[in-house]
């Protein structure tokens, strides 16, 4: 995995090599093994390399045909061997054995549609000199990041925002609309980010920059139109097909010239991936886990059971409250957006463990919950739909209580409260966002901490309605279950799971995550499955569980879904109060102007007093803290942007 950056002078001026050096220097931790810069005429491409495939021959930027095509590429093309053979048969001659060259020659052969042939995770830019155009693309699910901005006469792009901010002409200001989205969905909606004027290329899209024009073209989307019963095909045949797909998706994700590890959470998905990797690669697979002090969120028992069953060499790291506090500022430096949960922090520690153990690549189970009906929100949607058909029923809502055994607030609530909070009315059922409205409404309540001026600026903002413009044309005809799957996969997955909990905290320690469940063949298979095979009655991931019988321990295959959680607000109190005391002081909050100092202080006092706190309180505290760190390290500490991520900042923690 790597970091990329680049510049295109739209006004035909010469490109600034020093600027490229600064840009790539800011994200050098993504690729500490090698750097390269290409400058020619109006274009400049830069690359920081984490060598994984073709260690000797994969230097970038790479060019072919006497520099007619030049590429800077972050990612992996897992089917590069098959594509390479195909291209050789067509007469192409290769000078390296890297996937980068395959990608470049595939573009040469097939043009911009080449991305449809790729099985992988990528963000890249190709300078097409004969056509004088820059072609950029991002993978289907948004595993790899790609940001861009426009200045007067210049187009800039990079793997991370901090690289763009090394150019002092790029404004470094918070985008309140982006913040409004993040405090609703936990993520911004592409192309928006929380930085004003800095955009991200949406997942599944390519972009052409030519002359003064930017054209964005979607090449793939998760199409759930075809969810129908599979006539004539038995469940066991489908389970077998799924197993074969997953096996192959994992096999090609083991392609690397360095050791490959796997994360084990203790749940089904990561255990399946580790088991398939073990099957394919033998005992060279090492597994890694994070554990917690609190027994209600710790899964070490299942992690040990999985690693013993699979016979992997296993390492784990215990994440204590003080560890979350200790790395929180650096985590935000990498996420480049506020977070409403501390969950990225333990994963930051985990990637450090993998790195320190000598691993550059880890396989993980991300994507299974979104594609195969694993999340509680799908179950919740089904129950609410069932209840909504007969709102007067007194026993149907009891299913909600069974769904959330770990949430005491839900357990004790009466029918009237549940009905109100879960929007169980016939009108609500026909709304486009039925599945997610309760969650979004709860999250949006954190905006009560916005300052008067922030609220005034956002008076016209309506994050939820703004999504309507982004939905596929056939969305209205989909089932509520399919809609819920789409909303999870389209927004939360790339914007938070694969970003703040994925690429950003892994790449902080030069570790590349690979996700077999996000192989587009697996995703396309899942998209066509009827919902009843993803969740049979209320049995989550039904078909996946059928497919992996015998592959993983039964105790893990049949265990109830446990959401990955980390200690939130509690981490920052009880001995570690200085961090909050400094960051959330009334003076600082007032100075920043984003949040209300009085309300923030009352929130801090609530935590400090040891009184009961709600989910909303915890989201608000983490959100305000992370936004303040973001302001501190990016806006106020801009001068430090050109250097590597470091703990140097205005306030010593």
């Amino acid at each position: 995995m790597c970091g990329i950056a680049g510049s295109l002078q739209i006004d035909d001026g010469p490109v600034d090599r020093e600027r490229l050096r600064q840009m790539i220097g800011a994200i050098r931790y993504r690729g500490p093994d090698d750097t390269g810069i290409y400058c020619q005429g109006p274009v400049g491409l830069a690359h920081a390399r984490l060598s994984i495939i073709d260690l000797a021959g994969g230097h970038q930027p790479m060019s072919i045909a006497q520099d007619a095509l030049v590429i800077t590429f972050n990612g992996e093309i897992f089917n590069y061997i098959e594509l390479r053979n195909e291209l050789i048969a067509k007469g192409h001659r290769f000078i390296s054995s890297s996937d980068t060259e395959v990608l470049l020659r595939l573009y040469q052969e097939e043009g911009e549609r080449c991305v449809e042939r790729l099985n992988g995770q990528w963000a890249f830019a190709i300078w097409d000199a004969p056509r004088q155009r820059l072609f950029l693309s991002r993978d289907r699910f948004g595993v790899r990041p790609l940001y861009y901005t426009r200045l007067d006469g210049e187009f800039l792009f990079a793997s991370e925002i901090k690289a763009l901010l090394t150019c002092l002409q790029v404004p470094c200001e918070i985008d309140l609309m982006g913040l409004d989205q993040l405090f609703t969905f936990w993520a911004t909606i592409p192309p928006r980010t929380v930085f004003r004027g800095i955009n991200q290329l949406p997942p599944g899209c390519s972009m052409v920059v030519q002359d003064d024009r930017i054209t964005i073209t979607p090449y793939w989307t998760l199409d759930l139109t075809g969810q129908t019963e599979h006539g004539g095909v038995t469940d066991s045949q489908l389970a077998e097909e799924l197993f074969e797909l997953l096996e192959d998706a994992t096999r090609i994700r083991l392609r690397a010239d360095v050791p490959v590890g796997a994360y084990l959470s203790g749940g089904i998905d990561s255990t399946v991936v580790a088991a398939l990797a073990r099957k394919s690669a033998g005992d060279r697979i090492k597994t890694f886990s994070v554990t917690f002090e609190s027994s209600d969120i710790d899964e070490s028992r299942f992690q040990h059971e999985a690693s013993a069953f699979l016979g992997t060499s296993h390492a784990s790291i215990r994440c204590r409250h003080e560890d979350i506090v200790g790395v929180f500022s650096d985590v935000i430096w990498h996420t480049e957006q506020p977070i409403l949960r501390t969950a990225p922090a333990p994963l930051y520690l985990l990637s450090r463990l993998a790195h320190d153990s000598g691993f550059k690549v880890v396989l993980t189970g991300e994507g299974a919950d979104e594609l195969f009906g694993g999340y509680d929100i799908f179950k919740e949607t089904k129950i609410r739909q069932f209840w909504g058909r007969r709102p007067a029923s007194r026993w149907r809502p009891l299913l909600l209580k069974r769904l959330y055994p770990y949430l005491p607030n839900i357990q004790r609530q009466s029918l009237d409260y549940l009905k109100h909070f879960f929007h169980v009315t016939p009108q609500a059922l026909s709304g486009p966002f039925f599945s997610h409205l309760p969650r979004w409404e709860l999250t949006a309540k954190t905006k009560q901490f916005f300052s008067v001026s922030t609220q005034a600026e956002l008076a016209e903002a309506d994050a939820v309605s703004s999504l309507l413009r982004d939905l596929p044309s056939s969305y209205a005809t989909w089932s509520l279950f399919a809609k819920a799957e789409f909303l999870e996969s389209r927004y939360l997955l790339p914007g938070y799971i694969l970003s703040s909990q994925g690429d950003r905290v892994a790449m902080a320690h030069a570790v590349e995550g690979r996700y077999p469940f996000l192989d587009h063949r697996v995703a396309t298979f899942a998209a066509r499955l009827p919902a009843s095979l993803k969740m049979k009655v209320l049995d989550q991931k039904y078909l996946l569980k059928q497919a992996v019988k015998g592959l993983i321990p039964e105790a893990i295959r049949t265990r109830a879904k446990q959401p990955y959680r980390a200690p939130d607000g509690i981490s920052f109190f009880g001995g570690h109060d200085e961090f909050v005391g400094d960051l959330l002081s009334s003076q600082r909050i007032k100075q920043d102007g984003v949040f209300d100092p009085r309300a923030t202080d009352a929130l801090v006092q609530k935590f400090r007093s040891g009184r009961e706190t709600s989910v909303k309180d915890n989201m608000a505290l983490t959100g305000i803290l992370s936004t303040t760190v973001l302001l501190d390290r990016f806006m106020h500490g801009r001068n430090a942007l050109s250097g590597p991520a470091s703990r140097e900042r205005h306030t010593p923690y």
Partner: protein
Amino acid sequence: MFGRQRLVVVPTKIAQVGGLVRMLQTIRKFVIDNYLFGEEGTLSDEDSFMETGIIDSTGILELVRFLESTYSITVTDEELIPDNLDSVSKIASYILMKQSASPQTAQAHSFRSSGDTRP
């Protein structure tokens, strides 16, 4: 059931009025401190917590714990309904009802209930 009744409180002494006022103030302060975080705004004692969005689905238990510890009552699951808990005044009425139903914790004040006054 408490949930089906609206309590009309008729104070008979000045001290009782003072007690009710204090109770309303205490509940109000709790709501402002814990749900509005000091931003009192235009909150009235009759405002519905659900309709105004003051309390979300995760905040109910905080309220219950506060009532139980402050007024030495036990809120049963059956009583955990909007009719009892959805505004400052409803909470006050509910507490008075609980206290009058439980001699050990009842205050010396004597309040009279009109029973179900719903139309």
